[in-house]
């Protein structure tokens, strides 16, 4: 393998517990998003568009759909002779093996993968977030500042700050304090879970962390605080674009609805920064004479006879005559019969909704229709 300037390690083992039945059979990064994508498409496309062509994807929870989706990475231009995408599941060695115990341990167990490229830098990202970012600019910043580690940060509303890893910086953007989910945050600068490390420094800290039996082997809780304590050069890189952790049904629903604005803050069709995905080979969508479709995203392979308002339809969705869909997300290949009403709902892939049914409600909650069951959560 020839040397690489930067290798990306993409953490994709998340269970996404708060997405309920949506993640029964798939990991959170594989959850469908935006009418066409899976969540992981955003980080894979960011890597590809940023010129990072060597990406290790760490999987653990329900990996099958993710594995087959990623394939050899050709959808994201990551099918490369030198580098490309590699799926890295936990493995058994001569001395036994174990599951990934934490984000840092997952990288620790795959140091052999990084070493073969002898990189200057390692980018650690998570496949759980929706955003567009040029990592090459962050890498330039990291180099300019002569940093050992750089963490991408964004300002979050103060009332939400205690849900995040919060940074305290000096006036040169050097991070002087890092608190993981603090009860009383001192700033509202939140970590986006995007780190760039000098590989030599990371290697040292990962190895030391591994030898500490008290450690939870987590970047936010252990590695970053240890580097700050040692007064390493840890810098904050400010980001002010769209970023969303779609970890709950509410935030998943909101992030989809955000796309329906006239001028959405997340633009999906920028020719300079395309979001790639695996193409399902479907014909164009057919909108019937009786249909009415407004303020919605509709993907190829849909056949619509009903009324669609403020909704997102993934590929292969059929909506029968006289049906109304409002404020909802309809995942791939859902077949909706005639005279059905669906409101404020997320309908899981492949669901069949029979004629005349009413799903969801307008009482301020979101309903998840998955596995033939309906679960409601507050909006």
């Amino acid at each position: 393998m020839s040397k690489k300037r930067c290798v990306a390690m993409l953490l994709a083992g998340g269970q996404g517990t708060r997405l309920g039945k949506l993640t029964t059979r798939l990991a959170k990064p594989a959850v469908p998003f935006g009418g066409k994508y899976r969540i992981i498409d955003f980080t894979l496309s960011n890597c590809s568009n940023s010129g990072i062509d060597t990406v290790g994807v760490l999987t653990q929870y329900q990996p099958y759909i993710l594995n087959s989706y990623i394939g050899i990475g050709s959808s994201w231009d990551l099918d490369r002779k030198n580098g490309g995408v590699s799926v890295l599941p936990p493995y058994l060695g001569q001395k036994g093996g174990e599951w990934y115990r934490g984000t840092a341990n997952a990288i620790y167990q795959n140091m052999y993968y990084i070493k073969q490229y002898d990189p200057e830098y390692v980018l650690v990202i998570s496949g759980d977030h929706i955003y567009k970012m040029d990592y090459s600019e962050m890498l330039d910043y990291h180099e300019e500042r002569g940093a050992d580690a750089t963490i991408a940060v964004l300002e979050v509303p103060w009332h939400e700050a205690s849900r995040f890893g919060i940074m305290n910086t000096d006036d040169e953007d050097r991070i002087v304090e890092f608190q993981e989910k603090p009860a009383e945050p001192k700033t509202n600068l939140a970590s986006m879970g995007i780190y760039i490390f000098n590989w030599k420094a990371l290697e040292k800290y990962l190895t030391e962390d591994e030898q500490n039996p008290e450690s939870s082997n987590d970047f936010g809780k252990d590695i970053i605080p240890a580097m700050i304590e040692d007064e390493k050069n840890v810098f904050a890189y400010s980001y002010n674009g769209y970023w969303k952790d779609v970890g709950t049904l509410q935030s998943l629903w909101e992030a989809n609805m955000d796309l329906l604005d006239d001028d959405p803050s997340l633009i999906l069709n920028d020719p300079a920064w395309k979001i790639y995905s695996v193409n399902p080979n479907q014909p164009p969508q057919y909108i019937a004479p009786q249909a009415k479709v407004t303020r919605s995203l509709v993907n190829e392979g849909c056949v619509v006879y009903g009324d669609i308002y403020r909704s997102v339809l993934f590929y292969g969705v059929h909506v029968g005559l006289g049906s109304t869909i409002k404020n909802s997300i309809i995942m791939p290949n859902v077949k909706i019969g005639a005279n059905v009403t669906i409101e404020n709902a997320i309908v899981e892939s492949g669901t069949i909704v029979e004629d005349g049914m009413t799903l969801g409600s307008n009482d301020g909650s979101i309903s998840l229709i998955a596995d033939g069951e309906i679960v409601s959560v507050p909006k």
Partner: protein
Amino acid sequence: MKKVVGVINLVDEKNNLSELTNHRSFASVPFAGRYRLIDFSLSNMTNASINTVAVFTREKYRSLFDHLGSGREWDLDRHRGGLFFQPPADDERKSDGDISSFYENLSYFKRSLSDYVLVTNGQLVWNVDFDQVIQEHEAQNADITVVYKPCDDPYTSGRNYNVLYTNDDERVDRLNLDVEALPGDNVYLNTFLMNSSLLISLVEDSVKTGKYDSINEAIAGSLDRYHVHAYHFGGYVTFIDNIESYYRYSMEMLDPNVTQELFYNKGPIYTKVKHESPAKYLESSNVSNSLVANGCIISGTVENSILFRGIRVGKGAVIRNSIIMQKCEIGEGAIIENVILDKDVSVSPGETVRSEDQPRVIAKSTVI
């Protein structure tokens, strides 16, 4: 299992789709919102596990070459076999019939060590199960199997096609090239399966004797020597031979029964992927009876029309009975009726582009 190699023969293509074929070959004319005509025959080959396919072409193949690339979208980037793009080896043969292209590519047939060669063209919109053609060819112990469709469409009758006549055993005893088809006539779809060794000797003989200029003439002249079986294709197929028929067959894509048969009942139709976002319908959009591809952003009215990928329809704009190709921009309040806009056409706000009877074609990249 017998080995089959494919040929998409574009050598005798006509360039009669006015502005649409000024700069591109017939086979790369856009169709049905996101496809090129060649996608149908090529996907049919892939779906029959034919993974060695040559495209014989003679001119205007730039856009076609760009479209096909390595053949990856059709699963034709193979170590064994794959896609062979074959422009003419020799410019001086330009006026010859297609037999010279087969002759130029004899090594393709010899080297492939195949049992059969399946030849079709790049202008039919259809979803045919070539496996069935192969099975019938074997069951009939035929030397050549030609595919036909009875002319049951009032539009096709009276126009010139290749027409075949069979005896009671579906054996072809006459093949009349370029004759007026009458209702009930069997139109030969310029698609045949032939034993590879026979194809090679037929091509070599034709060139040596100078007797036949085209592969169809060679077949028509060999009916008494070989067992030529007729395969009846019962599915949907188009006969596009001018702008009027291009428009008419395009509009048939608004019939869900037709698209069901073409796209869903059998194998998928593959095409070049553009990674466009899903189509977006804004508050003021009003779309009915239309086919819409991804990447479109619609604020206006669209009726009985086909929108290809990446089209912008401004507020108050009205598109009726029209075909709008990739990346066109229709400004606010513009009116488009009964027209075919080729790629990248931009219609300024408030302009009207309309034609009364015949669909009008607006050339690529025109600004109105």
